């Protein structure tokens, strides 16, 4: 066993993460099938055609409202919720960590700030529950999802929208906002998938968001090892190829989605501002489909995370029944 079991989440957080991922993927697959309907015609058909797709999108939207409401209530009424919330609130150290990271990239700092530590290579007590990047992800996703829910509900109910905003301009602003924010969120999610799926120490998946903390031992009493444990890992042979490939796919996906939303006449960028498509239309079609492929990989990884959790549970179970025999195998559950 290595020293990688830092940043542990409760069972509720891991379950919530999985459900949220499923729901958000459903929203993305339907939403992008609508927005990029000419590039993702096959997805539109799979999602129930032009009538079914809106129905699915709205049902998933209601699912999101339910999940978010549940989460907010839990944050407020449980002790763990409140303490988790405190751990997510950004501090001065997080800003310092960001600044130091920029310096680090420029070669002006020797090491990364403790609040930037997220992955292997440190003792687990040196690593915060969430790095500043992790906190950023939580906050950005939370804000984006809230705004998407609000604008989505307003767009859904035409009369509600008109009643509150009285002018067509305001109503249209919400429609466009919903689309643009969706694109920004897509880029963030692609990055999130890459970040947590293709790190050399965790490839093909960082398990902390899937295996609840009470299933992870607090100490490593099996052996007394010097070092952080990272030196005991060996790099998966396929990592290099797969990580590079996914890096390229994520980049192509993000760039295409961004470009297509500008080039594509009409929604969400007004016609007057749109650049003419023409020749690059084909490239964009490929690029956007690559983006959807990246999302699909994310969905598969999210499901795989739960498979790993099941395996982990089973091994713990066996270990409990045969106290010594299982030790070696637990470590291999990380693969």
């Amino acid at each position, binding site marked *: 066993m290595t020293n990688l079991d830092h940043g542990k989440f409760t069972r509720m957080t891991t379950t919530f993460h999985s459900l949220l991922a499923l729901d958000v993927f459903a929203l993305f697959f339907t939403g992008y099938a*609508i*927005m990029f*309907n*000419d590039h993702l015609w096959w997805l539109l058909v799979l999602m129930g055609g*032009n*009538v*079914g*797709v*809106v*129905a699915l999108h*709205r*049902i998933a939207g209601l699912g999101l409202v339910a999940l978010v409401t549940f989460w907010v209530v839990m944050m407020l009424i449980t002790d763990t919720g409140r303490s988790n919330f405190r751990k997510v609130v950004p501090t001065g150290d997080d800003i310092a960590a960001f600044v130091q990271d920029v310096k680090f990239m420029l070669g002006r700092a020797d090491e990364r700030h403790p609040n930037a530590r997220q992955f292997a290579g440190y003792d687990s007590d040196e690593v915060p529950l969430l790095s500043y990047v992790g906190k950023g992800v939580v906050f950005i996703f939370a804000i984006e999802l809230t705004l998407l829910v609000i604008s989505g509900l307003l*767009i*859904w*109910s*035409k009369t509600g*929208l*008109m009643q509150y905003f009285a002018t*067509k301009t305001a*109503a*249209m602003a919400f*429609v*466009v906002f919903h*689309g643009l924010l969706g694109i920004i969120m897509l880029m963030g999610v692609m990055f999130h998938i890459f970040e947590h799926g293709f790190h050399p120490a965790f490839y093909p998946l960082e398990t902390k968001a899937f295996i609840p903390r009470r299933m992870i031992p607090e100490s490593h009493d099996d052996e007394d090892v010097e070092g952080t444990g990272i030196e005991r890992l060996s790099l998966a042979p396929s990592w290099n190829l797969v990580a590079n490939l996914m890096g390229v796919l994520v980049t192509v996906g993000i760039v295409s989605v961004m470009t297509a939303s500008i080039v*594509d*006449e*009409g*929604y*969400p960028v*007004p*016609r*007057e501002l749109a650049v003419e498509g023409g020749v690059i239309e084909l490239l964009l079609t490929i690029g956007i489909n690559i983006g959807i492929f990246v999302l699909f990989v994310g969905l598969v990884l999210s499901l795989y995370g739960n498979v790993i959790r099941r395996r982990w549970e089973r091994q713990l179970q066996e270990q409990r029944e045969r106290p010594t025999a299982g030790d070696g195998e637990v470590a291999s559950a990380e693969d």
Partner: protein
Amino acid sequence: MSKSNQEVMGDGVMGVGENTRIFPDVEACIDCGGCVVACKRTWDVPRDEQRISISTMLEGQEGEGGLNASSGRAMEQGTSPGETSIPMQCYHCDNAPCVSVCPTDSLVSMEDGFVNVRDSLCIGCQYCLSACPFGAPQFPDSDEGVADIVGSGGTMDKCTMCDERQEVGKGPACAEECSTDAILVGDATQIADELERRDSGVFFNDVAMEIIFGDDAEAF
């Protein structure tokens, strides 16, 4: 039509085909509903849908300053036009907001300047309804099946400007039928000139005119 009247009012339909616009002369409209009937009969429009409808505003009220029969002039002068009936339909805008906002490109500005709905692409999101300043988009299937359950709009339907009739040289059914020639069909200059000749004002504000006619709005 008597000879003296003919000198004042020309035909509503002045031209058809490419770059033809459709625009109401509200001062001529007497709210008889002839256009509505003509449209329904021509296209078999279902009972609970109207591709053209007459909106009557300030019902029973008198216009200010003797402008009772000159709603357009009253609007231009910023005074109350009194009871006015406006034939509302899709004006096939030059700067069509509905086309801009349709996420599936189901609404398109055709080469000939007409705005078309491609039924097979429409997802019933009703963004066009939010965008259209004239309330043209209709959703006759909005309470059917899945559309009803999830609150989507079914497929959008609106005035086609009788493009099929125009292809064979006929004017839109509503304009041909209108007994007072209150629906003007022709290019922007023809419409502007005809309104001028009738001494009818433009009932819509500059923003709306800019949306409908684009650069040609200057003709008015």
